[in-house]
């Protein structure tokens, strides 16, 4: 009995300390973004001055715009491309599939900095002007592998007869694809899109190397702003935390609502 109680206290303590460790920096950032002084330790009063500074900083606002633009475009493009590729991959011969899976793993397994310098030299050699285009191409490049990786398991567990049945019953291949395959793997596509969005939205290392000519994302701005104590960073950080939290909540709630509707429809 006594031992059980000890174990209970031990596990509660471990969990509590873990949560404090993980969430303290995040909560700290949010709280001090509303501080009315420059201090990092004393909360002297509520103010929105750092948010005002953030909205008045046009470089920062450009970076927010670029970050969201790139993330949305990279997510849409890499999700569509990744879905196509994954379906093609599941139908291709063994050798080609093995080779492609190896290549696909490269950006996932390589340290970001290695991927980044490869792309930097590649773009520079082709004399492509560093900026929005190089940033977008790079983000698409590192997002697609994650989309493929999250769709492949769904495709593997798909019954191949379903597709044959659809085709036998007179579906064109395109119809079979959209009406039969895609709905079956939709959860994989959705989680792939979610990973792509957050990867792109949060990326620093690769963006930092491949961009130029004044096109920055939020991470790069933070990195260059950290040289001095600057609570505006806390405001930007809070904005990022809010956006990611909203995306995550939406992504988790959407399937739940859909699931409820489906069961409701089934019951009705």
């Amino acid at each position, binding site marked *: 009995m006594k031992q059980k109680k000890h174990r209970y206290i031990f596990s509660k303590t471990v969990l509590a300390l873990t949560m404090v460790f*993980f969430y303290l920096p995040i909560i700290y950032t949010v709280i001090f973004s509303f501080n009315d002084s420059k201090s990092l330790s004393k909360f002297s009063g509520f103010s929105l001055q750092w948010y005002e500074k953030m909205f008045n900083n046009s470089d920062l606002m450009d970076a927010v715009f670029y970050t969201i633009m790139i993330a949305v475009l990279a997510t849409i493009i890499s999700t569509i491309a990744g879905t*196509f*590729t994954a379906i093609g991959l599941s139908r291709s011969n063994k050798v080609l599939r093995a080779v492609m899976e190896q290549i696909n793993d490269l950006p996932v397994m*390589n340290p970001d900095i290695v991927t980044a*310098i490869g792309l930097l030299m590649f773009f520079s050699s082709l004399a492509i002007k560093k900026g929005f285009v190089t940033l977008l191409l790079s983000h698409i490049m590192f997002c697609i592998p994650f989309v493929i990786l999250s769709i492949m398991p769904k495709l593997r567990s798909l019954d191949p007869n379903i597709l044959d049945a659809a085709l036998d019953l007179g579906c064109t291949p395109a119809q079979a694809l959209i009406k039969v395959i895609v709905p079956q793997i939709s959860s994989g596509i959705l989680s792939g899109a979610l990973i792509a969005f957050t990867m792109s939205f949060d990326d620093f290392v690769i963006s930092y190397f491949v961009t130029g000519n004044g096109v920055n994302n939020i991470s790069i701005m*933070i990195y260059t702003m950290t040289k001095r104590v600057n609570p505006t960073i806390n405001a930007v*950080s809070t904005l990022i935390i809010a956006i990611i939290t909203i995306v995550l909540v939406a992504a988790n709630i959407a399937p739940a609502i859909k699931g409820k509707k489906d069961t409701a429809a089934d019951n009705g």
Partner: protein
Amino acid sequence: MRGFRSMLYPYVVWSFIMIVIPMLMIVVYAFTKEGNSVTNILFTLDNFKSFFNDTVFIEVLERSIFIAVITTVLCILLGYPVAYVIAKLKPASQVTAVLMITLPTWINMLVRTYAWRGILDKNGLINSILGLFGIGPIKILETGFAVILGMVYNFIPFMILQIYNSLSKMDPSYLEAAADLGANKAKTFFKVTLPLSLPGIISGITLVFLPAVSSFFIPKLLGGGQYMLIGNVIENQFLTTGKWGFGSAISMVMAVIILIAMYIARYIDKKLSVKGGLD
């Protein structure tokens, strides 16, 4: 049916251009002389020589490996109990706990690392708490400790989740069998639980060591300008001095270190799991 196969081909072309060629360029630049033209490529090992002959770079290399090893060991020692505790919770609480640990990893690493500056600063949270007890202020920021803390903070979720995965897959009847056969709690843990969770630790090591050895913004944000790691040297070669060949060579040295680390991890895994099976 067969038509679907052609959906792969655009990506074959894309990945060759965007993934394979950039990787090959690193290798080519590392092994050739500066100022090559396409028709005249000169092989050289100079880039590697100038790296290994410079004591400053060797020091950076040693420091990077040291920090990455310490980070990995700390992630195992601190992450294991957490994963263990989570695996013993009720199934519903397990889901919540895993979610709580995953959530912060979705938030920008740079943001979360920067937050530690406020906490560790001379006038920051920790020092003001210590001040209440009349201690300090202690210099925490811009030390090796701060860098390791930042790395453990950023990478330990991967370790916890990997160990948790292998622990939660474990068949509880093994533990009952061990208890029935007279093993005490400690013996059961070291002879049954630990060996069975080893695959989780091994994949955790890969997920922690790799980003730790190549990280360059954590040392810059928390270690100050003086605290150089190998990632910072690569950054300087490409963004400050423009020595691509030298920078490529250093990143290849780093890649070799990562491969060696993975090989060692797999070797230990093999050795220990064979031994665990025999005893």
